[in-house]
């Protein structure tokens, strides 16, 4: 069934859909398990004349504020439903949306709610994967039954898992490099019709069926900057202990801030969106219940070697025109950063190091990594004692 609400993903990091482009766009919302389409884009007649994006790192948080100057060049009012996409969960500590200086009504969908909304599509796609491997499906079902047996029978479950492992080899599914537990977790979510883990997502990525995932639609796939080389790396944090902290706020999940605005004919409007985010710091969960304690925060804040990753989704394709994006990033004086696209250090302002850049026609998101100066030294520099 097609729900024809249309959405606009606005700027900043708003919308985003990956394959096609970047900063802000209007979209349709669809929930059609047959097609798998969730948030197809739609072009708006409105223009973004300019955008200012300010990111202030106040470890462990990052405060983000973005302002747009919007213009409707037509002779008719343009009503837009905007879904502002944020990689990961935002922390709303103040009213998040102002239009022409006035507070707007809004609705926020956390990562788990977005995932839940698209889960029917994801589940259907997983089912299609299972149809390709009937033997695997049978083995998963047996292991699932064993895991739910009451009373719990560890021996029976171990046998079922061994059998599942054999089937994975026999069907060639072991090439997807997924642990037996991950297959089993995915099958459990599939059977329950509930989102208790992200195992189905991992399976779909592994088997190449990732296009139905929200992160793919919104270009929020897990990526992070290598602080030493500036290279953009993909994937979740790896098994290498050195890289565990690379988990970014763009861990492959989005939350959505929805609101509606009306652009009057041939008029210019100001839109401001603001929120906070716990910057990516190697700890992530989709579940809002897993909150950090104050001690956790203080530990993060006081740990000079802690690195923080942040991704801001930039998308411009669905706007009729998109002007320059002025970016300002502020970090504490004892930290350094690397960004992509690059920003320039312009001095200290109010005790914070300030970096700026002007971007036009962005091709990708804005990626930032912040940490102590040592984080950015190459091994050679470190061995030579260079700062």
């Amino acid at each position: 069934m097609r729900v024809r609400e249309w959405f606009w993903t606005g700027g900043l990091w708003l919308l985003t859909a990956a394959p096609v482009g970047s900063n802000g766009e209007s979209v349709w919302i669809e929930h059609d398990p047959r097609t798998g389409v969730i948030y197809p884009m739609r072009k708006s007649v409105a223009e973004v004349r300019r955008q200012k994006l300010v990111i202030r790192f106040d470890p462990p948080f990052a405060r983000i504020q973005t302002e747009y100057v919007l213009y409707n060049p037509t002779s008719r009012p343009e009503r837009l439903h905007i879904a502002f996409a944020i990689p990961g969960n935002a922390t709303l500590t103040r009213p998040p949306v102002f239009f022409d200086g006035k507070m707007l009504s809004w609705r926020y969908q956390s990562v788990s709610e977005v995932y839940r909304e698209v889960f029917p599509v994801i589940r259907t796609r997983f089912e299609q994967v299972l149809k390709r491997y009937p033997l695997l499906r049978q083995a998963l079902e047996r292991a699932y039954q064993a895991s739910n047996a009451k009373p719990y029978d560890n021996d029976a479950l171990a046998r079922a898992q061994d059998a599942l492992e054999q089937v994975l080899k026999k069907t060639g599914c072991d090439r997807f490099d997924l642990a037996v537990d991950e297959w089993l977790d995915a099958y459990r979510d599939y059977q329950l019709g509930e989102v208790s883990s992200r195992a189905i997502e991992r399976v779909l990525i592994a088997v190449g069926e990732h296009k139905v995932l929200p992160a793919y639609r919104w270009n929020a796939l897990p990526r992070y900057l290598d602080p030493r080389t500036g290279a953009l790396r993909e994937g979740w944090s790896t098994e290498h202990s050195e890289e565990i902290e690379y988990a970014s706020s763009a861990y492959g999940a989005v939350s959505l801030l929805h609101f509606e605005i009306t652009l009057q004919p041939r008029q210019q409007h100001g839109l401001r969106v603001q929120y906070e985010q716990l910057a990516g710091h190697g700890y992530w969960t989709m579940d809002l219940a897993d909150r950090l304690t104050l001690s956790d925060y203080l530990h993060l804040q006081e740990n000079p070697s802690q690195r923080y990753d942040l991704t801001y989704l930039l998308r411009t394709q669905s706007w009729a025109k998109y002007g320059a994006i002025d970016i300002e990033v502020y970090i504490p004086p004892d930290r350094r950063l690397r960004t992509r696209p690059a920003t320039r250090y312009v001095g200290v302002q109010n005790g914070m190091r300030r970096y700026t850049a002007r971007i036009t026609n962005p091709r990708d998101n804005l990626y930032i990594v912040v940490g102590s100066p040592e984080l950015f030294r190459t091994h050679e520099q470190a061995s030579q004692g260079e700062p």
Partner: protein
Amino acid sequence: MRTAGILIAWSLTFAYLTAQGDPTPISGIVDRENRRLMPAASTPLRVVQHRLTLRPEFNNSWRIESSYRLHNPTDQPVQTRFAVPLEGGAFYAEPPVLLDGRAVEWLHLNRFHAWRALAQALQGMQLASNLSPQSAALETYEKQCAEWASQRRFLNAALNTLTPPYKAFKSPPSGWRNIEYEWLIFTVSVPARSERTLTLRYQFVTERAQTYTDAEELWLAPVHLVYVRATERLAFDAPTQVRVILPRPWTLRSHPPLQARGVRNDERVYEGALRAAQQLALVAGTPRDLRKIGVVGDALPPTSVVDWEAEVLNGAPYVATEWFASIGGAGAPRAQLRLLRDGAEIKYANHTLRLVDGSRRALWNGNPVPLTAPPLRVDGRVYLHLRDFAFWIWQLGGEALWGDYPRRIEQITVRLHPDKTHYEVNWKR
């Protein structure tokens, strides 16, 4: 005579929550003089009507909508700043503060920001030796949170008792060990001799002690909520009209009790009025989940662990006979449980135990033996009284699990722990 023991694992899952409550008038964020957060103030505003709607959402959260009709009885306009205490924080899915339906500016002060505000206020103050403003702020924050949290009581659904947070369950989850408050802060203006409607909307995501692989336990375990009325600083001229809306498979226990109003739109509705009571303790879940209570056994060989849970039926602890099927395995014969139309039959090796629903007499290898209480059949399961269960699991399981370990028992006692958090089973032989 000696006592050996088995620890029956605490296997209940609960979604743990958290006390939330009404807004309290405050004079600022920090009382520097007394080193307190959210110093209370007084207001002439009165609450002439209060409606509270509580609804569990997916993902173990409670959605709370609280609507206050505020009356200013004075001849002057009154502007009051409020702070809503949010234990563990809150999640906003929509504008959280409305005045007569219009969004109001608000601020969420999280625990980190609260700590920082305290630390800044303490800068330059005379502090105890070796204590930095940051450390003093942490100490003050933790102390104050513990003070607030200690006032609430949780409802033990199975036993219908109110207990302090640390005694509510045998193994409090980490969320309860780190009781930390956050605040929703806003300012409300009410003209002279006028009324305004203040609406607060927020969600709490609860915590769970464990994750289970089973759907029922993962998603339908009991969800607790304690709502604390702020009657000290905000005068209520009318009782709070409470409405709780639950998914149909769920049921509610509350203190004070709320009335079931039937099922509407496939949701179960409960209503009631909160008068003198300053706390509303709720627990929601499936009927079976609400009956569960932990069991700790003391006296079996230390290497054996049986994972039981008791359910409170007719006021007494019962255990589902399906747990008998956990006896044996790993080289030993496996016990077999057969549910019959009028009871159950458990077979192990050459032994047979036959239970008859409602009968205080069982058959052990064909010979009648007395039971403490008749077995009960509930939701298709056959339950044995905890004392009978403990005896027979020893009798059958002793051979299966503990080999030649002496199986003769002189006495089994079952008692409710003084904390009223779990039952204790003791074997003497």
